[in-house]
C-alpha cells in the first residue's frame, strides 16, 4: 500500500514525538499520519507494511493479533519514488485512554500502572487494579501474545522500544494492549542480524532499555524479551523496580516483589512457582541469549491465569485479539535459574505513603479526616525562615490539600453505573427500532423495566431512610 503525500488531506497535529509528528486525517477517521522530519528510505518501510499484510509471512491468527493490538504501518506515504515522507497507521481506539478528574482524556500509558494504585487514584480519580491483580497479569499475557506473533514469522520482527509511552493498555473490555511506534521495528535474519538498511538508528527509551545493548547500538530480538519481563515486574508489582543501573554496572540483582497473600497461596504464584525463574532468566544481563521467547511467556501466563481461576481474563484476551488461535507449541517453562537475577515474591506490606515523601501534602488520604475546601495554601515560613519539614506521613498544616480519593472513587463508580444504565437502554432501544428485531427489542425493554423498577425501589428506600429521621418516623 502506497500513496503520495499530495493525495492526503492532513488535519490537526495530534502529538509530536522524537522522530515525527502525528496528524489526524479528516477523510480517514481512525487512521493517523506519522510524518518524519525528513524523508526516509521507502524500502524498509514497504517491507514492514508488507510483513503484516496479506501474503506476508504471518499466519492468519498471528496477523489478527498484530492488526488488533498495534499501530502497525499500513501504508507508505511517498514524497518521491523511493522517499517516504511518513506512514499511515491505525489510531489507538478510545478505550486506550483514561479520563482524569479534569475531564480530559489522555493516552493510557504504562506509567499509570507502575505506581501505587492508591497514589494514582488520589492524583487522577482513576480506579486501577491492585498489584498482583489478574487484570494486570492479563495485560502482560496480551502483550506476550502480540510479541509471540512478531517472533512467529519468518523473518521475525523486534519492536525494539517497548517503553511506558509505546505500550497502551485498556481493561474496559478485558485486558488489552496497543503498541505504538511500530515503524521502529526491525526484521531479523536467521543469524539474528538486522535485515533493514545498515546505519539505521533505533534507540530504546531510557529506564525501559535493555542493559546489555551498548550505548549507540541497536536492540535485537532479545531486547523485546527483556522488556516483556520488565513490564511484567513493573505492572504486576505496581512499582518502578529500577534495576538497569545495577545491571549496567555488572551487579547481580535480587528483586523482592510484594504480592497479595491470596495470590501467593496459589501454586502458580507461590515462591517456588516456575514463573519466578522465568522472570529471572528473562531479565538476565549475564545471559541475554538465554532469555526465553515470548511464546514461553504466553504459555506460562496462560497457566498462571488458569491457576488463579481467571479463565474469563484468558477468554477476554483471546477475544480482543480477534482470534483464539492457539499459541505456538508451549516451550517447557522450567529451566535453569538465571545466574544474575533472582526474584522473590513476598506477602504484601503496607506501602509507604509515598505522596508525603516530598512532605508536600496535596491529595493525600489524610485529607479524608480533615477535608479542606480549597487549594489556597498558607505560607509556611516567614522571614528568611524555613518551611518546617513535615512529619513523614502527614501533610504539614496549611498545605494545599484537596480531593480526597474516596469520594472521587465513589464518583467514578457512580459515573460507571450511569454509563452502564444508559447503554442498557440504548441496547434495548436499538433492537426496538430495528425492523425485524422487535421481538428481541421487547424482551430487552422488559429487562430494562425490571432494572429500572429495582433501581427505583432502592432509591425510594434510601430516600425514605434519609428523610424519615426528619419527619420523626
Amino acid at each position: 500500500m502506497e500513496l503520495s503525500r499530495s493525495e492526503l488531506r492532513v488535519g490537526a497535529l495530534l502529538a509530536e514525538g522524537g522522530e515525527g509528528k502525528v496528524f489526524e486525517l479528516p477523510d480517514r477517521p481512525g487512521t493517523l499520519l506519522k510524518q518524519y522530519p525528513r524523508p526516509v528510505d521507502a524500502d524498509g518501510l514497504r517491507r514492514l507494511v508488507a510483513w503484516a499484510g496479506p501474503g506476508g509471512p504471518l499466519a492468519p491468527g498471528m496477523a489478527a493479533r498484530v492488526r488488533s493490538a498495534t499501530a502497525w504501518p499500513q501504508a507508505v506515504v511517498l514524497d518521491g519514488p523511493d522517499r517516504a515522507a511518513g506512514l499511515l497507521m491505525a489510531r489507538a481506539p478510545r478505550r486506550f485512554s483514561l479520563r482524569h478528574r479534569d475531564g480530559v482524556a489522555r493516552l493510557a500509558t504504562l506509567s499509570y500502572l507502575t505506581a501505587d494504585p492508591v497514589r494514582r487514584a488520589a492524583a487522577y480519580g482513576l480506579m486501577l487494579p491492585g498489584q498482583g491483580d489478574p487484570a494486570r497479569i492479563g495485560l502482560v499475557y496480551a502483550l506476550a501474545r502480540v510479541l509471540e506473533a512478531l517472533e512467529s514469522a519468518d523473518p521475525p520482527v523486534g519492536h525494539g522500544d517497548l517503553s511506558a509511552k509505546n505500550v497502551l493498555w485498556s481493561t474496559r473490555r478485558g485486558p488489552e494492549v496497543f503498541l505504538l511506534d511500530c515503524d521502529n521495528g526491525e526484521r531479523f535474519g536467521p543469524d539474528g542480524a538486522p535485515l533493514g538498511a545498515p546505519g539505521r538508528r533505533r534507540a530504546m527509551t531510557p529506564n525501559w532499555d535493555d542493559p546489555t545493548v551498548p550505548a549507540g547500538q541497536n536492540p535485537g530480538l532479545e531486547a523485546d524479551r527483556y522488556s516483556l519481563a520488565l513490564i511484567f515486574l513493573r505492572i504486576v508489582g505496581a512499582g518502578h523496580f529500577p534495576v538497569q543501573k545495577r545491571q549496567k554496572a555488572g551487579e547481580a540483582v535480587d528483586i523482592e516483589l510484594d504480592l497479595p497473600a491470596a495470590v501467593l497461596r496459589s501454586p502458580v504464584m507461590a515462591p517456588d512457582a516456575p514463573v519466578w525463574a522465568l522472570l529471572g532468566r528473562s531479565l538476565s544481563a549475564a545471559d541475554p541469549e538465554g532469555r526465553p521467547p515470548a511464546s514461553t511467556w504466553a504459555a506460562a501466563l496462560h497457566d498462571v491465569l488458569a491457576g488463579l481461576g481467571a479463565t474469563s481474563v484468558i477468554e477476554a484476551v483471546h477475544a480482543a485479539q480477534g482470534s483464539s488461535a492457539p499459541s505456538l507449541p508451549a516451550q517447557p517453562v522450567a529451566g535453569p535459574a538465571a545466574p544474575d537475577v533472582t526474584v522473590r515474591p513476598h506477602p504484601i506490606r503496607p506501602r509507604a505513603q509515598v505522596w508525603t515523601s516530598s512532605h508536600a501534602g496535596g491529595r493525600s488520604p489524610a485529607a479524608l479526616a480533615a477535608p479542606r475546601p480549597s487549594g489556597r495554601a498558607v505560607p509556611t515560613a516567614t522571614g528568611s525562615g524555613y518551611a518546617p519539614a513535615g512529619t513523614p506521613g502527614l501533610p504539614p498544616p496549611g498545605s494545599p490539600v484537596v480531593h480526597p480519593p474516596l469520594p472521587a472513587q465513589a464518583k467514578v463508580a457512580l459515573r460507571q453505573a450511569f454509563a452502564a444504565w444508559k447503554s442498557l437502554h440504548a441496547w434495548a432501544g436499538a433492537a426496538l427500532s430495528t425492523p425485524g428485531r422487535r421481538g428481541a427489542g421487547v424482551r430487552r425493554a422488559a429487562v430494562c423495566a425490571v432494572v429500572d423498577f429495582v433501581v427505583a425501589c432502592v432509591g425510594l428506600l434510601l430516600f425514605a431512610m434519609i428523610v424519615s429521621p426528619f419527619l420523626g418516623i
Partner: protein
Amino acid sequence: MSSDAVGVEERYAVFPFYLCLDVSASMAGDPIDSVNRQMPLLRASVGEDPAVAEVIRFAVVTFSDVARTVLPLSDLSLVEAIPEVRPEGRTSYGAAFEHLRHTIESDYQAGRAAGDRWYRPAVVFISDGRPTDDEARWHAAHAALVDPGWKRRPNILAFGFGQADPAVLSAVVEGKANRAFIADEGAVPATVVPELMKGLISSIVSSSASVYSGEAQLSPPEVPGMTPIAVDQLD
C-alpha cells in the same frame, strides 16, 4: 526487605525544581498576574502526565524583603492547585538564597528518609529588579548556595526583565553559559512572563525525559523575547 534487594519502594530518581520568584512591589500587576495565570498550565502539563510527574518534584519560593515557601517540594500529580503569589516589599536576593540553601537541604534529608534519590536540583530564579539588600549579604548567601563543598548545590537558571541587571543575573548563575536570560529591550512583562512560563514548562518536561537517561540534564528553555546573557557580561 533485605538490605540491597530491589523492592516496590525503590523508585526512579527525581529531579527537584525550585521556582524562586521575585514578588517585590514592582512585580505587582501584569507580571504577578500572568505568573498566577500560567501556574495551572504548569501544574497540568507536569502533574497530569504521570511519566513526567513521577520524576519531577516542584516547589515555589517567593522573595521580597523576606523569602517564603509558597508550595513545598511536591509531586505535582498530587497537588490540586499551586497557591497564588502576591506582591510584597523590596528585593532581597540574600533572603532568597539563604532560604533556598536551607530548604533544599531539609527537603533532601526528608526525601532521603522516605527513600527518594535526587538528581542535582535546579533553581529557576526570576526577578524584575536589582537586589535592594546589602551586596555583602547577598554575595555571602549566594556563595553558600553554590558552595562546591555542598553536595546539594543547585544548578541555577536566571531570568530577568524590568530593572533586572544582566551583570547581576550572570553572577547569580556563576557566569555559566546559557543559564541567564534577559528580556529584550521594550518587551513587556505581560508577554514575556507567559512565554517564560511556557519555556519553563517545556524545559521541565524535557528535563524529565533526560532523567530517564539516567543522566539528568537541565534543559535550558527557549523563550521568545528573551536573550541569553553572554558569559563575558560577568564583569
